[in-house]
Structures are given as structure tokens and as C-alpha cells.
């Protein structure tokens, strides 16, 4: 094996893994248990019903070199309730995360916040005298950026869903 290749293999990289599994708690616990029990990282996880009833689609984002991520996918596959495991990282894929960010407002700051919201194509979904809640959708970086832009105004609460992702079918150039 050439050293160039092994270097690339050792590089820690973000991976998005899509898992189809039977929709039950034991399956979810076993999937999470693989990460805690074997010392793998887990950045985000989202669990919900997929296209078939009784089957959950779980999207996991993790970090690791090629070797570790290969072990993660193999170990996930060993869970009896897991139907399919796909590391989306090497193919084009679409990925979204949703966040609700509750920001403290004053009459003076409100319009600036609304401008920032527009830049991120986010929506204001709740508004009161002292607060407003922004719904922002995008990849992790975009949400991180939105949060950082809103932070100076005073963030009260943040709720994030974690990534959901699917393989991209469109293969042409945009």
C-alpha cells in the first residue's frame, strides 16, 4: 500500500451514515450501544419512520478515519434488526438539519434579527414582546453560522434535529 493512500485513509473525516432498521427501541438502543460500547464518536442521530411502515430510517453523523468508519458500518450491520447500512459520504447526497433558535429581542434589535433571518432563508415562527423563534433549515454549517450570527442578540434556547440525509439521484451538473 502506498503511503499516500494510507495517509488519506488515516484522515479523520465527517461521515453521514444512513441506516434502515426495524422500528423498535431495542434496535435503536443497540445502534447507539455500538457507538458507546466501542468508543466511536457520534455527532448527531435522528430517528424516524422511513418510507415503509414499521421500518425506521436513522441518519447518523460521525467522525473517523476510513478504518474506523468501516468498522462502524460493519458493526451496525451486525445488529439483527438492521436492514441496510449506507455510508453516504462517498456519493453525492442531500443533507438537511432543522433548528429552532429562540432569541431575546428588543424593539431596537428586532428588525436586524429579521434581516439576518432573511439572509439565511429562515422563518420566524414565534414572536412575543421579548423573544422571537427562528426556524432555519440547511446543512450543519449553515445552521452553525445562523446561530453564531444570532448569538450577539442573546440566544435563550436552541433545538436541533440532527442531520437527515438521502442519496442524491440527480447525477448531472448543475
Amino acid at each position, binding site marked *: 500500500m502506498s503511503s499516500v493512500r494510507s495517509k488519506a485513509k488515516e484522515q479523520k473525516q465527517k461521515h453521514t451514515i444512513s441506516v434502515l432498521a426495524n422500528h423498535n427501541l*431495542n434496535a435503536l438502543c443497540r445502534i447507539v*450501544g455500538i457507538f458507546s*460500547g466501542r468508543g466511536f464518536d457520534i455527532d448527531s442521530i435522528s430517528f424516524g419512520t422511513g418510507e415503509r411502515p414499521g421500518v425506521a430510517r436513522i441518519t447518523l453523523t460521525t467522525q473517523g478515519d476510513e*478504518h474506523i468508519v468501516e*468498522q462502524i458500518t*460493519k*458493526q451496525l450491520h*451486525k445488529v*439483527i*434488526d438492521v436492514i441496510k447500512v449506507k455510508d453516504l459520504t462517498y456519493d453525492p447526497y442531500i443533507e438537511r438539519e432543522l433548528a429552532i433558535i429562540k432569541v431575546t429581542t428588543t424593539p431596537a434589535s428586532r428588525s436586524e434579527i429579521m434581516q439576518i433571518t432573511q439572509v439565511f432563508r429562515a422563518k420566524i415562527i414565534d414572536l412575543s414582546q421579548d423573544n422571537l423563534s427562528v426556524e432555519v433549515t440547511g446543512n450543519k454549517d449553515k445552521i452553525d453560522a445562523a446561530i453564531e450570527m444570532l448569538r450577539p442578540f442573546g440566544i435563550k434556547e436552541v433545538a436541533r434535529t440532527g442531520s437527515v440525509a438521502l442519496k442524491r439521484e440527480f447525477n448531472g451538473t448543475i
Partner: protein
Amino acid sequence: MSNTTQTQQAKKKHDIPSGKRSPAPAEGLSGSEILLRTLVDLDVDTIFGYPGGAVLPIYDTLYKNTDLNHILIRHEQAGTHAADGYARATGKPGVVLVTSGPGGTNTVTGIATAAMDSIPLVVFTGQVPTNLIGNDAFQEADIVGITRPITKHNYLVKDVNQLEHVIREAFHIAVNGRPGPVLIDLPKDMINAKGSYTGHKSVSIPSYNPVTQGHQAQITKAAELLSNAEKPLIYVGGGVMLGEAWEELTAMAERLNIPVTTTLMGLGCFPESKPQSLGMLGMHGTWTANMATTECDVLLAVGARFDDRVTGRLDGFSPYSRKIHIDIDPSCISKNVHVEVPIVGDVKQVLPQLDKATQKPNTDKWWATIRKWQKEHPLRISHKEGVIKPQEMIKAISKATNGNAIVATDVGQHQMWAAQHYTFNHPRSQITSGGLGTMGYGFPAAMGAAFGVKDRPVVAIVGDGGFQMTSCELATAVQYKLPLKIAIMNNGCLGMVRQWQELFFENRYSHSILSASNPDFVKLAESYGAVGLRATTPDEMHEVLQKAMDINDRPVVMDFVVEAEENCYPMVPTGAALYEMVEGDD
């Protein structure tokens, strides 16, 4: 991989003898009734169990049942080890039945032991009634949660009409693919509720289809490597035992005249009296096996997992070889050591294909090197007049049983000496906790083996430390009149701990000396109604063994008082490579 092959395989492993062992379908049966009928239909004949509140209805049903042989063990941990020993000796899944709470938690060590060595077990635990789950009820424990990381799969039964199906699935999962333990938690109301028994045997789990057929292109690549090898070596693991591929392996190694080394778990898969056998490799492997592993140019790993006790320091493990790895579990491949030619599949199917595609390599020069190693570095047995040397004790047992016994061991020095000095010529003969390294395993596992195999002598080789962890099972062995031989290698200390303390902690024997408070093992045996014998010299040892081999109506405990400060060599110190092994100074 098609579903049909899977079902065929399941059928092969669970072929039900026709006639009275196929219960008829029926409705309105209690959960206990359904449980026992399904077990009988799955060809289960022996259950290791212990009653308690939550499983009383099952025990009541068992009271009237004559198709199942229930063994009353004395501690659930030992019972799980017994089921494990039964599984290793017979190839059939071991079955355990215990109550809720502590009954379940006591099985944890046994389940983890089985999980690490991929042993098929099905463990039934009682549970508090469904409506009390989560209420911290009396004898409630979340056993499904507790055992999740140490089972291949587990279930909580929530519908009595699912019970039969769940049991069939559990057995299917336990024995197919890479085997392992499966647990079924049975709430008391499910045991009492009425439901139906269908007798439908087929099991299909869409999410579980292990690959058994090797990839043809990979097999061809592997065959090319082997055919052109100058210094090939076959490294055999427990997968060959689990996959029952010892005949295929032996045929291939003999035809191609390739040397074979086995792991602790693989001992017996290749007859050690054959000229191709190099013995065990790894931390306490033979000099020749470790050097051959280091020097070989093609390493064929069969059903082995490159465990740290086998490889030593990874960058020094077989550095010049190209590696082929056959395993049914893809996650074992390239986990610890990078492999050039992975073949995912059932060793029993892949080995004959590989054998057929491979041309006999020219290994004359390689053999000359190997024979030189064997001559210059044999396993050493020191001799001291009037003292039983531990290695001589193992040799004597090997001789007294003609190498035909099923030998179960505990963990530690005696385990390694047994692996080195007992000549294992038959598969399913060496029963030991390899992965988890569970002290207290050997005696109950031997007991389980003795329940499963009646026509071979069964010997438990244990240390004085480990034996005391499960010695309560003497009651079980006596109750069922098992002709079990228990050979205690009594060095008055935790031998392997003491050895490490001598070698790496400047003789500070911190909490490893037992001699002052050990019981009189002869009296202990006698108090249970077993035979107790003691030997302190080699002559007495031979006498005791002779006597013990002739007793066939109850267990015999042999207390062999051996040289206390003997060290087990060769030894690869932690962090060293295989070729850096030390041979000791005697």
C-alpha cells in the same frame, strides 16, 4: 445469499427427529406449555436452570414434562457456563432457564463468556408481570437492557401468541452465521396467558442473511497466492470449530503440506499429532508457531479474529506476509490487521473450494526451517525429583486419557499449560473461555459437556483459585452422578497473576497468594459425596489418575499439589511482538 440456503442450513442444524418429538399444534395453551413444546420441537433435550418466583409456572409445567431433561444447577452463572460447555461439546445450542432479577443478572458473566467466543446459547429469564415492568418491582431487573451489549440479539415477549415464533427466531439467530447467545425475557403474565402453538417451523428474518458462499474471484486470488507461496502458513481459529470444518481443513493442509498453527479456540481442529501441526501461536504459543507466523510469506487465516493475545504488537505481527482471511463475520476482517484477500463466507463451504483451486506449493525449504525451530526450541518441561511439575501434570492427564478426553479449563497458567501440553487430536475437545477469560468457567463447562457427551471422558483442569469460584456445582455433579474428573492444579496462588507480579512488578505478590486459606479440597469433595484424592509427588499423581479414571458413578476431585513458583513459557510480554517472546531461564 439466498434465503433458501439459509433455511436449509437451519434445517440441517435443527433437523427434528420425526415422531413423538414433534408436538401437535394446539390452541388455548399456557405460555409455559408453548415454551416447552417449542423447545421439544427444536430438538432441545437438556435445560440448565434454577427456579424462582417469576418462573414458577414454567417449573410447574416442567414437573409433568418427560421430554426435557432439566438440570438443577446451583448458581445461575455456573448454569450458563454449563450450557455453554454443553454447546461447545455437542455443537447444539445450550439452553438456560432462570428467574427474574438476580436469576438473570447472575447469568451475565456466562452470557458474556459465550458472546466473546461466539457460542450459541438461548437464555430464558423470567420477568415481573408486564404491568409491573418499570415499577422497581420485587426481583425486577431490566435484563434486556443489561444484556444488550453481550447478546447477539434479545427479546422481551409482549404477546403470548408471538412466543413460539420468538423462540424459533432466537434459535435460528443463535446458531446461524457467527453464532452467539440470545436472551428471551418472559414476563410472568406471558407465561400464564393462553395462546396457540402452531408447529410452523420456518423462520425467515429479512434483516438477517449472513453470507455463507465465498466470492469466487476472491477464492481464485487466494488460491494463486497459496499456490505460489514459498513459506505459507494456515492460522486456524475457533471459527473452524463453530463451522465444523475440521475435516475440510485437515484434508487441505495435508494435501498441500502447509504448516498449521491454531489459536486457543482452534485447538483440536487440526490433529496435533500430524506432522503439519505447529501447535498454538500467540502469547504462550510455541516458539515454532510464533516464528512461522512472523516469517511466513502467505498467511491464511481461517475463522480467526487476530485477537491481541494472538498477534502481540501489531506492527510486528507477520510483517512479511500477504494475508488471506476467511470469516463469516465481515466485521472481523481487517479489524486489527489489514488483509489483502478477504473472503466472507462459511469456512465449511469456502475451504474445499480453495483447496480445489490451489496447487501444492513447494515448501521443502520452509519445512527445513520449521523443523530446525522445532528441534532447537521445543516446549520445555523442567523436571524436579519428587515434585509435580504443572506441565508434567498435563502430560500425565493427556496420557491417562489417551488424548481422547474432552478437556475444559479455567483461566490462567493451567489453561495455557493445558493448551500447550495436552495433545488435542479431536475437535470439540478443548473447552475454555478464550475471549473473556472467565475464571470459574472450567468446572461447570466440563459438567455441561458431560451432560451432552456420554461416550468420552470429561476432565476439568482448574486452578485452586478458579475452582473456588464455582465449586458449589459439586452438588450438581454429585446429584446427577456425573463421572467427571476434576483436576486441580493446586499451586496455592493465582498463578498467572503471580507470574506477572514476579516478572513485571518485582515479586510484589499483591493479593495473589491463596495457600493459607485454601480449603482441604479432598474433604470439600467428600462433603458433597464426591470422591476426593490428593497427590503431592509424581508417583502419587499417576496412582491418583489411575484410580480416578476407574470411577464412573460420581465426580472425582483430584488435588494435585504442584510446584508453586513455576512460570509459563514461552511468553510474549505485553507490547512485544511475537518474535520477541521469552523462553524463561530453566
